[in-house]
């Protein structure tokens, strides 16, 4: 049995739910969003990822209707939503502060949006009960927001924003206020609820791990521009720029001059070191300055030089970060560069193979890293 992969962004016939068309947003002289175009498809769990001030929250507020567009247009299901006020949009938002009404019970908070429409009392009651069950809050329905925990409040906010069955749900740093353990549990809960309800989710976050975990696609933003929009694995394994490679996870970046022969590239990066052998489908001019990016876990660390390795360098262990399941070794090369290598701690710590000041070999294959032009 083959499962169809959910990837409407690869389907040229798929109709996007949201289209940003050349959207620019300026606050006075400051350009928050710079001529940005983006399609988001139905049932997607789309993450906007970037450092604070990159414009991700502005994009979300434009979708919700709290900010107007300076130029360009935003289409929801093919219709320009520019002139539609927030209370008339089929879009709901879960606020970073949750924005629960402190004077209303959990039940009334969830019913708040439903009461603004023309649903009957029974319909409202049924819908609220459904939402309470979905978010496992039935027990707390009669409490006020200040009488429940942070995690429960987060679920109330989610239930309230889902109650009106919006076409699009916006989540502004939804897990920011939770501690790490709860955050991880809630991430899976969010994905589960997204799947159950089939709602399109757009999440704003600065936490790359969170974006990678929950999202079907991730957009990495910087200074009002989209740097890369792709699935989490592509963002991680094949970043299109040093910025993305550096923003997502840990990475070693080596600068050098490229020489290309077909798809194989050799990068001379330090005197007295053999050039790095890598692969790239891009055509590079001879001698072009490039960055070679490789993730620490793609480097293997050994005592002897491995015979078959495409790339191998030797160095001295400078530092070891023990993280329990894995250890990160900082290895100083004779050139002075420091490379990070990770290995899983399959043995007990007492029997660790390497320690400080040991001379070790780092090796990797031709396809382990990526060659980046910018």
């Amino acid at each position, binding site marked *: 049995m083959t499962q169809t992969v959910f990837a409407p962004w690869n389907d040229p016939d798929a109709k996007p739910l949201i289209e940003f068309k050349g959207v620019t947003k300026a606050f006075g002289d400051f350009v928050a969003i710079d001529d940005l175009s983006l399609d988001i498809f139905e049932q997607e769990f789309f993450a906007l990822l970037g450092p604070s001030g990159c414009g991700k929250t502005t994009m979300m507020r434009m979708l*919700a209707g709290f900010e107007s567009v300076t130029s360009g247009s935003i289409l929801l299901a093919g219709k320009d939503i520019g002139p539609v006020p927030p209370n008339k949009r089929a879009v*709901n938002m879960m606020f970073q502060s949750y924005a629960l009404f402190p*004077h209303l019970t959990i039940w009334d908070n969830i019913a*708040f*949006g439903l009461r603004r429409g023309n649903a009957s009392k029974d319909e409202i009651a049924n819908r609220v009960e459904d939402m309470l069950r979905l978010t496992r809050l039935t027990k707390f329905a009669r409490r006020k927001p200040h009488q429940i925990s942070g995690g429960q409040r987060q679920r109330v906010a989610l239930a309230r924003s889902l109650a009106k069955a919006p076409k699009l749900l916006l989540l502004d740093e939804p897990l920011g206020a939770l501690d790490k353990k709860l955050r991880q549990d809630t991430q899976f809960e969010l994905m589960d609820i997204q799947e159950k309800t089939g709602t399109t989710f757009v999440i704003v976050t600065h936490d790359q791990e969170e974006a990678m975990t929950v999202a079907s696609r991730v957009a990495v933003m910087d200074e009002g521009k989209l740097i890369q929009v792709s699935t989490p694995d592509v963002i991680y394994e094949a970043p299109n720029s040093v910025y993305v490679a550096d923003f997502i996870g840990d990475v070693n970046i080596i600068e050098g001059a490229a020489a290309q022969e077909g798809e194989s590239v050799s990068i001379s990066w330090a005197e007295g070191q053999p050039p790095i052998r890598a692969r790239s489908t891009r055509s590079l001019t001879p001698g072009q300055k490039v960055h070679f990016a490789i993730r620490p876990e793609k480097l293997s660390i050994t005592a002897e030089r491995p015979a078959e390795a495409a790339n191998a360098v030797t160095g001295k262990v400078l530092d070891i970060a023990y993280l329990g399941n894995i250890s990160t070794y900082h290895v100083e090369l004779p050139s002075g560069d420091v490379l990070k290598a990770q290995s899983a701690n399959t043995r007990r710590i007492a029997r660790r193979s390497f320690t400080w000041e040991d001379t070790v070999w780092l090796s990797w294959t031709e396809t382990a890293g990526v060659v980046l032009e910018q």
Partner: protein
Amino acid sequence: MRRLILIAVPYLWLLALFLVPFLIVLKISLSDIALSIPPYTPQLDLSEGWAGFRAFLSGLDFENFAFLTTDDLYWKAYLSSLQIALLSTVMTLLCGFPIAYGIARAPHEWRPTLLMLVILPFWTSFLIRVYAWMGILNTEGLLNQFLLFLGVISEPLTILNTNTAVYIGIVYTYLPFMILPIYAALEKMDESLLEAAEDLGCSRVSAFWLVTVPLSKSGIVAGCFLVFIPALGEFVIPSLLGGSQTLMIGKVLWEEFFSNRDWPVASAVAIVLLLILIVPIILFQRNQQLQREAEG
């Protein structure tokens, strides 16, 4: 021991400055008028011992309170005071809420200045400010001259010495007491709550009624009591701005004390006023406590 001392300080304060004066007034209200200094009997004479004390107690009675029910003047004055206090509280709320709202929504750097402007009138004497209103409101006053100049009216309006002037005076005087608690409540309110309400389908107006008003309720209630309670016993404003037909219990009280020199009846009037005020004061305390519990 230290806790006891800490608790004792406010209680001693209340005892010395509230309870003891109250008991003195209560005693006078139970006495009879006399042409003497002080102008009432009986006086407690401790030199005669126990018999003197019994004679003193037997001299006390409730006839002054009974007297209050015989003359229409008193209950009419109480009712009219209640009416003026209630109406002016409502008017102060109507003026104060928009001002508090405006300050709470003003840019951060403006707020201290705006609050300062609210408190600024307290820097001059209350009496002088009321006299200033006499200058503004009288027939040759600034307001009439201005309106005549604009051509809005052809002959001067009579405002001074009417109830209208009393309302203006009370609203003006007590406005800061309304603005400050409402501002405190509004200022704490998270603005994303209004965005959330709009996001869930509220118009701006319904978001105001469904979110802003309920969340500033404690401030509104506190402000109303802070205006209503002193306005009920107000004396200076009705006697300076009000006319002969303005009937307020504060004025009656003053006349009993200083014109009639009937201290016992004046004290009885004061005791009844206090009893009327106890109800709103208890309600006010309850509101404060509920608010503390809600925040706790």
